[in-house]
C-alpha cells in the first residue's frame, strides 16, 4: 500500500521529481562514461606496453634484470618451453634477445636497446605491427632488416632501405659492428619507448653478438587474474637459474597508473553520489515540509508512524532508482557506442603512450559498485527527512 502511495506521490510534483531524476540521469551517465574512458586509457596503455615490451610474464636468466650482460641468457629455452606447454591460460610465447647498441649514420649517432625477435612469432605477439607507418615488419628480401622508430629515423636521417651501422659489445667482449637496412619505421604512442628501441631479427642479432639463446621469454595470458596461479606454478617448477617477473614488477608505473585509476573512479563515484545526496535531501525535505498536514491526516486516520516513515524512504528510493538506473543505462549505451566508434583524443596524446583513439569498454564491477553505493547512500540520506516526519503528530492536520 505504502509502495503504491509512494509511487503516486513522486509524480505529484512532476517538475521537482523530474529535475532530481534529470540530475541523476545526466550526472551518472557522464560519470560512467568518463570513468570507463579513463579505464579504457589505462587498459590500452597497459595492453600495448605488455605486448610490445614485457609480456604479462617474463622469464629471464636470474642475473639479467640487474646486470643486463649479453652472456646472461637462458641456457636451455627448450626446457622452459616444455614447462609452459601445458598451461592453458597462455596465449602466446615469444623469445627475444636484447642488447645495448649504438646506431650510426653519416649524419648522426643515437643509442638504442636492440631487441632480436622472430618475426613470425612476434607479429602475433606484439602490437608493434599496428604502429608501422612505413615498410614491413622485418619481412621481405632485405639483408639484416631493422625496425626503427620515426624519432630515430628523423634523427639519423633514415628512410626505408637506408643503411645504419649497429655497434655493440659481443659475447667475446669485443666491440663489433654490422650494417643493417631499415625494413620498417614505427611510431607508437609511447615516445620514451620509441626514443630508445630498435628491432632486428633474432638470427641477425645472434650472429653479430655471438650468442644463440634468448635473454627473455615473454608470455601473454588470456586472463590477467590467472597470473598468480601461473606464477605459483613457476615458483615450484622453474629451475633456479631463471627468474620470472610479472608485468607488475616490470612496468611499475603502469601498475601504479592502474591503481590510481581505480582510486579516482571509486572516489569520484562517491563524490558524485554525495552531490546527488544533497539534491535528494533537499527534495525529501521539501516533501516533508509541504505534507505536514497530509501526514498528520494519515496518522489521524490510523496509519502508523513507521508506515509513514517507510513510505517516505520508498519515495526517495523510487526517485534515486529511476534517476540512477536510467543514468547508468545511458552511460553504458554511450560507452558501448563509443567502443565501436572510438573516442578521438587527438594525436597529441601519443607522447603519453595513449592511442589517438580510445575504445572504452564497460567495466561491470564498476557499474555494480556504483549501484551498491547509490543504494547505501539513498538509504542513509532518506532517513533524515523521514525521521522528521516521525515527529509529526496527528493533530498537525487540524492546525491552520
Amino acid at each position, binding site marked *: 500500500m505504502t509502495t503504491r502511495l509512494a509511487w503516486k506521490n513522486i509524480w505529484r510534483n512532476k517538475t521537482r521529481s523530474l529535475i532530481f531524476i534529470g540530475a541523476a540521469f545526466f550526472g*551518472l551517465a557522464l560519470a560512467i562514461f568518463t570513468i570507463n574512458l579513463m579505464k579504457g586509457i589505462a587498459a590500452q596503455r597497459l595492453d600495448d606496453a605488455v605486448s610490445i615490451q614485457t609480456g604479462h610474464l617474463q622469464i629471464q636468466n636470474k642475473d639479467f634484470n640487474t646486470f643486463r650482460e649479453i652472456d646472461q641468457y637462458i641456457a636451455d629455452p627448450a626446457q622452459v618451453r616444455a614447462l609452459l606447454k601445458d598451461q592453458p591460460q597462455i596465449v602466446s610465447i615469444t623469445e627475444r634477445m636484447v642488447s645495448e647498441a*649504438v646506431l650510426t649514420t653519416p649524419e*648522426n649517432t643515437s643509442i638504442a636497446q636492440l631487441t632480436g625477435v622472430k618475426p613470425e612469432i612476434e607479429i602475433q605477439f606484439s602490437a608493434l605491427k599496428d604502429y608501422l607507418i612505413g615498410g614491413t615488419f622485418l619481412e621481405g628480401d632485405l639483408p639484416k632488416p631493422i625496425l626503427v622508430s620515426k624519432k630515430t629515423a628523423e634523427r639519423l636521417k633514415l628512410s626505408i632501405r637506408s643503411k645504419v651501422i649497429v655497434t655493440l659489445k659481443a659475447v667475446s667482449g669485443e*666491440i663489433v659492428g654490422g650494417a643493417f637496412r631499415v625494413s620498417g619505421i614505427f611510431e607508437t604512442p609511447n615516445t620514451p619507448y620509441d626514443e630508445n628501441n630498435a628491432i632486428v631479427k633474432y638470427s641477425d642479432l645472434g650472429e653479430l653478438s655471438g650468442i644463440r639463446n634468448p635473454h627473455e621469454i615473454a608470455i601473454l595470458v588470456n586472463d590477467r587474474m590467472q597470473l598468480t596461479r601461473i606464477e605459483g606454478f613457476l615458483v615450484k617448477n622453474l629451475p633456479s637459474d631463471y627468474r620470472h617477473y610479472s608485468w607488475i614488477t616490470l612496468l611499475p608505473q603502469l601498475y601504479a597508473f592502474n*591503481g590510481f585509476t581505480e582510486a579516482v573512479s571509486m572516489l569520484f563515484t562517491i563524490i558524485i553520489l554525495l*552531490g*546527488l545526496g544533497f*539534491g535528494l535531501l*533537499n527534495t525529501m525535505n521539501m516533501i516533508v515540509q509541504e505534507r505536514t498536514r497530509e501526514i498528520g491526516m494519515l496518522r489521524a486516520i490510523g496509519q502508523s508512524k513507521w508506515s509513514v516513515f517507510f513510505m517516505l524512504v520508498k519515495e526517495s528510493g523510487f526517485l534515486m532508482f529511476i534517476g540512477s538506473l536510467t543514468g547508468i543505462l545511458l552511460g553504458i549505451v554511450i560507452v558501448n557506442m563509443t567502443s565501436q566508434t572510438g573516442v578521438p583524443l587527438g594525436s597529441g596524446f601519443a607522447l*603519453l603512450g595513449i592511442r589517438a583513439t580510445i575504445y572504452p569498454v564497460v567495466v561491470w564491477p564498476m557499474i555494480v559498485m556504483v549501484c551498491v553505493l547509490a543504494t547505501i547512500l539513498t538509504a542513509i540520506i532518506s532517513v533524515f527527512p523521514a525521521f522528521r516526519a516521525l515527529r509529526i503528530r496527528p493533530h498537525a492536520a487540524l492546525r491552520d
Partner: protein
Amino acid sequence: MNQLIKLAWRNIWRKKRRSVITMLSVIFAVVISVNFRSLQWGAYDKMIEAGTKNSGYLQVQSQDYWEDKSINELIEDHVNFRNQISSVPGISSVIPRLQNFSLAASESSSKGALVIGIDPESENQYNELNSRVIKGSYLSENENAVIIAEGLSNYLKLKVNDTLVLVSQGYHASIAAGKYPIKGIVKLPNPQMNRMTAYLPLTTAQAFNGAEGLVNAFMLNVSDRTQVNATQLMLQDQLGPAYAIMRWDEMHPEIQKSINTDTTIATLLLSALYLIVGFGIIGTIVMMALERKREFGMLQAIGLQKSQIQTVILLESLMLGVIGVILAWLIAFPIVNFMHNNPIPLTGEGAKSFEAMGVEPVIQFAIKPHLFALMGLIIFLIMLVASAFPLTMIRKLKMSEVIK
C-alpha cells in the same frame, strides 16, 4: 534597490533548511573541485620543474639543432653573446651546454651515453647538480674529469677514480675520443637520464668534441615563469632569425600533453559533479519560484515592476551562490595551503610511477588563485542558468490569473 536587497536576503532565509542544503552542495562541489585540481596542479608543477631542471625554461640554439640534435649545429659561446641574451628583461641566468651522444666504455663493458658539457658553477646554481652527487665530488671548471650518473656507473661497473672511455663522432665528423677519471657519481631523478648521462666540464667537452668555443645551447632561467612567452618573443627579436628560441613546453611536449589529458579527464569528472549539483540548485530555485507565483502577482498588483521582482529573484540566487562560494573558499584555502606546506611523500608503486617520469614522488598541492576563481565562476554561471526559469516565469506572469 536597498529594499530589494533586503527582501532577497530575507527570502533566502525563509526556507532555512532548503537554503542551507543548497549552499552546502555549492560548498561541497567547490571545495572538492578546488582541492582536486590543486592536487593535480601540484603534480603538474613538479613535472614542469623536473623537465625544466634539465632544459631551462628557454633555450637558445642554432636554427636547425632541434630537428636532428646534430653535433654539427653549434653556436659560438662568446661573452658578448651571453650579455646580449641576458640584457633581455626577464632572463635571470644563462647556462651554456654542449651535449653529444657517445659510446661510454669501461674495461668490461660499454653503453651508449649522453655526454653533457656543463659550466659547473652556473649549472649548479640553476639545478643544484652538486646536491645530487652521491659518491666522490662535483666538477670544477676546466678540469679533465667526468661525473657519471648512478645507473651508468652500475652498468659499466665503474667507481670513483676509475677511468671512463668515451668514443664518438665529434664536430664536423672528427673522431672524438678521450679517457677521463671519474670524479663523482650523481643520482638523477629521471631514470632514463640516470642510466645514460655523463657530465664533463664545458671546456673539456669542447676539447673532446673538437668544438672549441662552441656550445649547442644556452639554457635560460627566467624570473617569471608565466611571462615565458613574452620573453621568448623579445629574445627572438634581439637575436634574429639565425637562432632558435625554444620554450620548455616546446622542448617537453610530453609534459604539456600529459597535463592536457589529465585536465580533460578532470574536466569530465568535475562536469559530472557540477551537473548534479547544478540540477540540485535549479530544482531549488524553480521550486522557490513556483511556490511564490501568487506572491509575485501580488507584488506586481501593488505596484512593483516586473523588472524589480526579477531583480529580487536574481539577487536571491546570486546570494545563495556567493555565500556558498565564499564559505567554500574559506574552507578550501586552509586545506590547499596546508597540503602545499606539508607535502606527503609517496611510497611503493605510486612513487615508482612518479619516478618513472623523473618527478619527485610527493603529493604537494599547488596554490593557484585561478582555480578558486574558476570554480566560483562556474557556480555563478549555474546560478544565472538556474534563475532563467523564474525570470521567464515572471515575465510571462498574468497577474489576474494568479491573484485571488
